[in-house]
Protein backbone atom coordinates (compact mmCIF):
# COMPACT_ATOMS: atom_id res chain seq x y z
CA UNK A 1 0.00 0.00 0.00
CA UNK A 2 1.28 3.47 -0.80
CA UNK A 3 2.41 5.29 2.28
CA UNK A 4 1.33 8.90 2.59
CA UNK A 5 4.18 11.03 3.86
CA UNK A 6 3.72 14.64 4.82
CA UNK A 7 6.52 16.98 5.74
CA UNK A 8 5.38 19.91 7.84
CA UNK A 9 7.53 23.01 7.74
CA UNK A 10 7.45 26.59 6.59
CA UNK A 11 10.50 26.22 4.40
CA UNK A 12 13.36 26.72 6.85
CA UNK A 13 16.72 25.05 6.12
CA UNK A 14 15.96 22.19 8.54
CA UNK A 15 12.69 21.43 6.75
CA UNK A 16 14.52 21.25 3.45
CA UNK A 17 17.11 18.87 4.77
CA UNK A 18 14.37 16.66 6.19
CA UNK A 19 12.72 16.55 2.76
CA UNK A 20 16.08 15.62 1.26
CA UNK A 21 16.64 12.77 3.71
CA UNK A 22 13.15 11.34 3.18
CA UNK A 23 13.40 11.54 -0.61
CA UNK A 24 16.78 9.78 -0.60
CA UNK A 25 15.53 6.97 1.63
CA UNK A 26 12.52 6.39 -0.61
CA UNK A 27 14.56 6.41 -3.80
CA UNK A 28 17.35 4.19 -2.45
CA UNK A 29 15.02 1.54 -1.07
CA UNK A 30 12.29 1.66 -3.69
CA UNK A 31 9.59 2.40 -1.13
CA UNK A 32 6.08 2.98 -2.39
CA UNK A 33 5.24 6.36 -0.93
CA UNK A 34 3.95 9.80 -1.81
CA UNK A 35 5.54 12.91 -0.36
CA UNK A 36 3.63 16.08 0.28
CA UNK A 37 5.23 19.22 1.66
CA UNK A 38 2.88 21.17 3.91
CA UNK A 39 4.16 24.72 4.06
CA UNK A 40 1.11 26.71 5.07
CA UNK A 41 1.17 27.50 8.80
CA UNK A 42 -2.59 27.13 9.09
CA UNK A 43 -2.40 23.63 7.64
CA UNK A 44 0.59 22.79 9.84
CA UNK A 45 -1.26 23.82 12.97
CA UNK A 46 -3.99 21.30 12.17
CA UNK A 47 -1.46 18.70 13.25
CA UNK A 48 -0.87 20.58 16.46
CA UNK A 49 2.91 20.40 16.34
CA UNK A 50 4.95 23.06 18.09
CA UNK A 51 8.27 22.54 16.42
CA UNK A 52 9.01 22.14 12.77
CA UNK A 53 10.03 20.27 10.71
CA UNK A 54 7.69 17.39 11.48
CA UNK A 55 7.34 14.10 9.65
CA UNK A 56 3.86 12.61 9.30
CA UNK A 57 3.48 9.05 8.03
CA UNK A 58 -0.07 7.88 7.28
CA UNK A 59 -1.45 10.66 9.48
CA UNK A 60 0.74 9.79 12.47
CA UNK A 61 3.34 12.31 13.59
CA UNK A 62 6.60 10.42 13.89
CA UNK A 63 9.28 13.05 14.27
CA UNK A 64 9.13 16.68 15.23
CA UNK A 65 11.58 19.51 15.57
CA UNK A 66 14.65 17.82 14.18
CA UNK A 67 16.16 16.30 11.09
CA UNK A 68 16.19 12.49 11.31
CA UNK A 69 18.93 10.21 10.06
CA UNK A 70 18.34 8.03 7.01
CA UNK A 71 18.25 4.89 9.12
CA UNK A 72 15.59 6.33 11.37
CA UNK A 73 13.37 7.24 8.42
CA UNK A 74 13.87 3.80 6.92
CA UNK A 75 12.83 2.16 10.20
CA UNK A 76 9.73 4.35 10.32
CA UNK A 77 8.73 3.46 6.79
CA UNK A 78 9.16 -0.29 7.17
Amino acid at each position, binding site marked *: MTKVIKILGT*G*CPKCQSMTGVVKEVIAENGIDASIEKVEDVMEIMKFNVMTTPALVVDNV*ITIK*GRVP*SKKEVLDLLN
Partner: protein
Amino acid sequence: MFDWLQHFSDWLIYTIFEIGAETHLGIALNFFVYDTLKILILLFFIVFIMGIVNAYFPIEKLKDYLNKKKLYGLEYFFSSIFGAITPFCSCSSVPLFIGFVQGGIPLGVTFSFLITSPLVNEVAVAMFLGMFGIKATLIYAISGILLGTIGGWLLGKFNLEPLLSDWVKSILANKMQQAAYIEESQTFSQRLPEISRSAWDIVRGVLLYVVIGIAIGAAMHGYVPENFFNQYLGGGEWWTVPLAVFVAVPMYANAAGIVPVIQVFVAKGVPLGTAIAFMMATVGLSIPEATLLKKVMSLKLITIFFGVVTLCIILSGYLFNVIL
Protein backbone atom coordinates in the same frame (compact mmCIF):
# COMPACT_ATOMS: atom_id res chain seq x y z
CA MET B 1 42.54 26.56 27.39
CA PHE B 2 43.17 27.58 23.83
CA ASP B 3 46.96 27.87 24.05
CA TRP B 4 47.43 24.94 21.72
CA LEU B 5 45.30 26.72 19.15
CA GLN B 6 47.51 29.80 19.36
CA HIS B 7 50.57 27.59 18.84
CA PHE B 8 48.89 26.01 15.87
CA SER B 9 48.04 29.40 14.31
CA ASP B 10 51.61 30.64 14.89
CA TRP B 11 53.01 27.53 13.32
CA LEU B 12 50.62 27.60 10.35
CA ILE B 13 51.10 31.27 9.45
CA TYR B 14 54.70 31.95 10.48
CA THR B 15 56.35 28.61 9.72
CA ILE B 16 54.32 26.96 6.99
CA PHE B 17 53.22 30.03 5.02
CA GLU B 18 56.38 31.89 6.03
CA ILE B 19 54.55 35.16 6.59
CA GLY B 20 56.49 37.25 9.07
CA ALA B 21 55.16 37.69 12.61
CA GLU B 22 56.04 41.40 12.33
CA THR B 23 54.03 42.06 9.17
CA HIS B 24 50.45 43.39 9.26
CA LEU B 25 49.33 40.55 7.05
CA GLY B 26 50.93 37.95 9.30
CA ILE B 27 49.27 39.34 12.42
CA ALA B 28 45.88 39.67 10.72
CA LEU B 29 45.98 36.14 9.29
CA ASN B 30 47.08 34.72 12.62
CA PHE B 31 44.17 36.46 14.34
CA PHE B 32 41.79 35.21 11.70
CA VAL B 33 42.84 31.55 11.88
CA TYR B 34 42.89 31.56 15.69
CA ASP B 35 39.53 33.31 16.12
CA THR B 36 37.73 31.29 13.48
CA LEU B 37 38.89 27.92 14.82
CA LYS B 38 38.22 28.90 18.43
CA ILE B 39 34.69 30.04 17.62
CA LEU B 40 33.91 26.93 15.61
CA ILE B 41 35.09 24.65 18.42
CA LEU B 42 33.06 26.56 21.04
CA LEU B 43 30.06 26.60 18.75
CA PHE B 44 30.17 22.85 18.24
CA PHE B 45 30.44 22.11 21.96
CA ILE B 46 27.71 24.50 23.04
CA VAL B 47 25.29 23.34 20.36
CA PHE B 48 26.11 19.75 21.32
CA ILE B 49 25.42 20.37 25.02
CA MET B 50 22.18 22.17 24.17
CA GLY B 51 21.23 19.18 22.02
CA ILE B 52 21.62 16.90 25.04
CA VAL B 53 19.63 19.27 27.26
CA ASN B 54 16.91 19.27 24.64
CA ALA B 55 16.79 15.52 24.36
CA TYR B 56 15.85 15.50 28.05
CA PHE B 57 13.55 18.52 28.02
CA PRO B 58 11.58 18.62 24.78
CA ILE B 59 9.34 21.61 24.32
CA GLU B 60 6.15 19.63 25.02
CA LYS B 61 7.42 18.74 28.47
CA LEU B 62 8.32 22.34 29.21
CA LYS B 63 4.89 23.47 28.11
CA ASP B 64 3.19 20.90 30.34
CA TYR B 65 5.37 22.00 33.24
CA LEU B 66 4.29 25.62 32.81
CA ASN B 67 0.72 24.51 32.47
CA LYS B 68 0.37 22.14 35.38
CA LYS B 69 2.67 23.48 38.07
CA LYS B 70 1.57 26.32 40.28
CA LEU B 71 4.47 28.72 40.03
CA TYR B 72 3.22 31.74 41.99
CA GLY B 73 4.36 34.42 39.60
CA LEU B 74 7.60 32.64 38.72
CA GLU B 75 6.04 31.28 35.52
CA TYR B 76 7.38 34.25 33.55
CA PHE B 77 10.89 33.52 34.76
CA PHE B 78 10.61 29.79 33.99
CA SER B 79 9.11 30.44 30.59
CA SER B 80 12.01 32.78 29.84
CA ILE B 81 14.58 30.16 30.90
CA PHE B 82 12.84 27.54 28.78
CA GLY B 83 13.04 29.96 25.86
CA ALA B 84 16.78 30.23 26.43
CA ILE B 85 17.43 26.47 26.42
CA THR B 86 15.19 25.72 23.45
CA PRO B 87 17.01 26.07 20.15
CA PHE B 88 15.53 28.92 18.21
CA CYS B 89 14.28 28.60 14.68
CA SER B 90 12.32 31.57 13.39
CA CYS B 91 10.02 29.28 11.44
CA SER B 92 8.95 27.55 14.65
CA SER B 93 7.89 30.74 16.40
CA VAL B 94 4.32 30.70 15.08
CA PRO B 95 3.64 27.01 15.88
CA LEU B 96 5.20 27.54 19.32
CA PHE B 97 3.08 30.58 19.98
CA ILE B 98 -0.13 28.79 19.07
CA GLY B 99 0.86 25.65 20.94
CA PHE B 100 1.43 27.63 24.12
CA VAL B 101 -1.69 29.78 23.94
CA GLN B 102 -3.82 26.83 22.97
CA GLY B 103 -2.43 24.86 25.87
CA GLY B 104 -3.91 27.46 28.18
CA ILE B 105 -0.69 29.32 28.98
CA PRO B 106 -1.33 33.03 29.54
CA LEU B 107 -0.29 35.38 26.76
CA GLY B 108 2.27 37.20 28.91
CA VAL B 109 4.02 33.95 29.86
CA THR B 110 4.05 32.96 26.19
CA PHE B 111 5.66 36.29 25.35
CA SER B 112 8.40 35.64 27.91
CA PHE B 113 9.30 32.53 25.96
CA LEU B 114 9.04 34.29 22.64
CA ILE B 115 11.32 37.16 23.72
CA THR B 116 14.11 35.05 25.21
CA SER B 117 14.15 32.28 22.62
CA PRO B 118 15.92 34.24 19.86
CA LEU B 119 17.76 36.51 22.32
CA VAL B 120 19.63 33.79 24.18
CA ASN B 121 20.36 31.13 21.60
CA GLU B 122 23.27 28.74 21.39
CA VAL B 123 24.94 30.50 18.47
CA ALA B 124 24.85 33.91 20.18
CA VAL B 125 26.17 32.44 23.44
CA ALA B 126 29.04 30.62 21.72
CA MET B 127 30.02 33.72 19.75
CA PHE B 128 29.93 35.87 22.88
CA LEU B 129 32.02 33.35 24.77
CA GLY B 130 34.60 33.29 22.00
CA MET B 131 34.84 37.03 21.48
CA PHE B 132 34.18 38.56 24.91
CA GLY B 133 34.92 35.83 27.45
CA ILE B 134 32.90 34.19 30.17
CA LYS B 135 31.95 37.26 32.24
CA ALA B 136 30.35 39.18 29.39
CA THR B 137 28.61 36.00 28.24
CA LEU B 138 27.05 35.43 31.65
CA ILE B 139 25.89 39.04 31.77
CA TYR B 140 24.40 38.69 28.31
CA ALA B 141 22.59 35.41 29.05
CA ILE B 142 21.28 36.42 32.48
CA SER B 143 20.12 39.82 31.34
CA GLY B 144 18.48 38.24 28.31
CA ILE B 145 16.51 35.90 30.58
CA LEU B 146 15.55 38.75 32.92
CA LEU B 147 14.53 40.87 29.98
CA GLY B 148 12.21 38.11 28.74
CA THR B 149 10.78 37.73 32.25
CA ILE B 150 10.08 41.43 32.71
CA GLY B 151 8.95 42.00 29.12
CA GLY B 152 6.47 39.11 29.31
CA TRP B 153 5.18 40.20 32.69
CA LEU B 154 4.69 43.74 31.40
CA LEU B 155 2.88 42.53 28.28
CA GLY B 156 0.72 40.31 30.48
CA LYS B 157 -0.55 43.45 32.22
CA PHE B 158 -2.22 44.67 29.04
CA ASN B 159 -5.42 43.11 27.82
CA LEU B 160 -4.02 41.71 24.61
CA GLU B 161 -6.22 38.70 23.80
CA PRO B 162 -8.60 40.72 21.59
CA LEU B 163 -5.61 41.70 19.46
CA LEU B 164 -4.83 38.17 18.32
CA SER B 165 -5.64 37.41 14.70
CA ASP B 166 -9.06 35.93 13.93
CA TRP B 167 -7.47 32.67 12.93
CA VAL B 168 -5.89 32.21 16.36
CA LYS B 169 -9.12 33.20 18.10
CA SER B 170 -10.99 30.52 16.19
CA ILE B 171 -8.35 27.94 17.12
CA LEU B 172 -8.76 28.88 20.75
CA ALA B 173 -12.53 28.67 20.49
CA ASN B 174 -12.61 25.17 18.98
CA LYS B 175 -9.97 23.11 20.64
CA MET B 176 -8.36 21.04 17.94
CA GLN B 177 -7.74 17.36 18.13
CA GLN B 178 -4.15 16.41 18.73
CA ALA B 179 -2.99 14.26 15.85
CA ALA B 180 -1.74 10.83 16.81
CA TYR B 181 1.87 10.88 17.83
CA ILE B 182 4.16 7.96 18.54
CA GLU B 183 6.39 8.75 21.48
CA GLU B 184 9.99 8.59 20.43
CA SER B 185 11.54 5.62 22.13
CA GLN B 186 15.21 6.09 21.35
CA THR B 187 17.64 5.68 24.17
CA PHE B 188 20.19 8.33 25.00
CA SER B 189 23.11 6.48 23.43
CA GLN B 190 21.09 6.00 20.25
CA ARG B 191 20.51 9.71 20.09
CA LEU B 192 24.09 10.83 20.71
CA PRO B 193 25.37 10.35 17.16
CA GLU B 194 22.35 12.22 15.89
CA ILE B 195 22.88 15.09 18.35
CA SER B 196 26.49 15.47 17.27
CA ARG B 197 25.47 15.30 13.63
CA SER B 198 22.95 18.10 14.03
CA ALA B 199 25.47 20.14 16.04
CA TRP B 200 27.81 19.77 13.11
CA ASP B 201 24.99 20.79 10.73
CA ILE B 202 24.44 23.99 12.69
CA VAL B 203 28.16 24.80 12.74
CA ARG B 204 28.32 24.22 8.99
CA GLY B 205 25.26 26.41 8.50
CA VAL B 206 26.80 29.43 10.22
CA LEU B 207 30.39 28.79 9.09
CA LEU B 208 30.19 31.31 6.27
CA TYR B 209 28.78 34.03 8.56
CA VAL B 210 31.47 33.39 11.15
CA VAL B 211 34.21 33.66 8.54
CA ILE B 212 32.75 36.82 6.99
CA GLY B 213 32.10 38.41 10.40
CA ILE B 214 35.62 37.72 11.64
CA ALA B 215 37.09 38.89 8.32
CA ILE B 216 35.18 42.19 8.54
CA GLY B 217 36.20 42.48 12.17
CA ALA B 218 39.84 41.82 11.34
CA ALA B 219 39.76 44.39 8.55
CA MET B 220 38.14 46.97 10.81
CA HIS B 221 40.74 46.33 13.48
CA GLY B 222 43.37 47.43 11.02
CA TYR B 223 41.69 50.36 9.34
CA VAL B 224 39.29 52.04 11.77
CA PRO B 225 41.19 54.64 13.82
CA GLU B 226 41.56 53.87 17.50
CA ASN B 227 39.05 56.33 18.94
CA PHE B 228 36.76 56.57 15.95
CA PHE B 229 33.61 55.36 17.71
CA ASN B 230 34.45 57.27 20.83
CA GLN B 231 33.67 60.44 18.96
CA TYR B 232 30.26 59.22 17.84
CA LEU B 233 28.99 56.37 19.99
CA GLY B 234 31.43 55.97 22.80
CA GLY B 235 31.13 59.31 24.52
CA GLY B 236 28.32 57.97 26.66
CA GLU B 237 25.81 60.60 25.52
CA TRP B 238 22.31 59.60 26.57
CA TRP B 239 21.06 59.16 23.02
CA THR B 240 23.71 56.66 21.93
CA VAL B 241 21.94 53.63 23.44
CA PRO B 242 18.55 54.32 21.80
CA LEU B 243 20.31 55.11 18.52
CA ALA B 244 22.19 51.79 18.57
CA VAL B 245 18.95 49.93 19.38
CA PHE B 246 16.80 51.66 16.75
CA VAL B 247 19.40 50.98 14.08
CA ALA B 248 19.55 47.33 15.14
CA VAL B 249 15.85 46.41 15.43
CA PRO B 250 15.02 46.13 11.71
CA MET B 251 18.36 44.47 10.99
CA TYR B 252 18.27 40.75 10.55
CA ALA B 253 21.80 39.74 11.21
CA ASN B 254 22.91 36.30 12.06
CA ALA B 255 24.43 36.33 15.56
CA ALA B 256 27.41 34.51 14.09
CA GLY B 257 28.18 37.41 11.79
CA ILE B 258 27.38 40.33 14.07
CA VAL B 259 29.38 39.48 17.22
CA PRO B 260 32.89 39.77 15.68
CA VAL B 261 31.92 43.20 14.35
CA ILE B 262 30.56 44.28 17.74
CA GLN B 263 33.80 43.13 19.31
CA VAL B 264 35.68 45.66 17.19
CA PHE B 265 33.21 48.38 18.21
CA VAL B 266 34.01 47.63 21.85
CA ALA B 267 37.75 47.44 21.19
CA LYS B 268 37.55 50.85 19.55
CA GLY B 269 35.81 52.51 22.46
CA VAL B 270 32.06 51.76 22.39
CA PRO B 271 30.84 50.90 25.94
CA LEU B 272 29.99 47.22 26.41
CA GLY B 273 26.43 48.06 27.53
CA THR B 274 25.67 49.89 24.29
CA ALA B 275 27.16 46.99 22.35
CA ILE B 276 25.07 44.40 24.24
CA ALA B 277 21.92 46.46 23.64
CA PHE B 278 22.77 46.61 19.94
CA MET B 279 23.31 42.86 19.85
CA MET B 280 20.04 42.13 21.64
CA ALA B 281 18.05 44.36 19.31
CA THR B 282 19.64 42.72 16.29
CA VAL B 283 18.97 39.11 17.19
CA GLY B 284 15.86 39.61 19.34
CA LEU B 285 13.68 41.62 16.99
CA SER B 286 13.61 41.73 13.23
CA ILE B 287 11.36 42.52 10.30
CA PRO B 288 11.17 38.87 9.12
CA GLU B 289 10.01 37.85 12.59
CA ALA B 290 7.33 40.53 12.54
CA THR B 291 6.17 39.25 9.16
CA LEU B 292 5.82 35.71 10.53
CA LEU B 293 3.98 36.90 13.63
CA LYS B 294 1.53 38.79 11.42
CA LYS B 295 -0.25 35.46 10.99
CA VAL B 296 -1.10 35.24 14.66
CA MET B 297 -1.23 38.85 15.83
CA SER B 298 -2.77 42.08 14.68
CA LEU B 299 -0.39 44.84 13.64
CA LYS B 300 -1.26 46.68 16.82
CA LEU B 301 -0.20 43.74 18.98
CA ILE B 302 3.07 43.33 17.08
CA THR B 303 3.74 47.04 17.58
CA ILE B 304 3.07 46.78 21.32
CA PHE B 305 5.23 43.65 21.54
CA PHE B 306 8.16 45.21 19.68
CA GLY B 307 7.72 48.49 21.54
CA VAL B 308 7.87 46.91 25.00
CA VAL B 309 10.88 44.75 24.10
CA THR B 310 12.70 47.70 22.49
CA LEU B 311 12.10 49.76 25.61
CA CYS B 312 13.41 46.97 27.85
CA ILE B 313 16.54 46.62 25.71
CA ILE B 314 17.22 50.37 25.84
CA LEU B 315 16.79 50.42 29.62
CA SER B 316 19.10 47.45 30.08
CA GLY B 317 21.67 49.15 27.83
CA TYR B 318 21.67 52.14 30.19
CA LEU B 319 21.88 49.84 33.18
CA PHE B 320 24.92 48.00 31.79
CA ASN B 321 26.71 51.23 31.00
CA VAL B 322 26.20 52.32 34.59
CA ILE B 323 27.22 49.09 36.32
CA LEU B 324 29.90 47.72 33.96
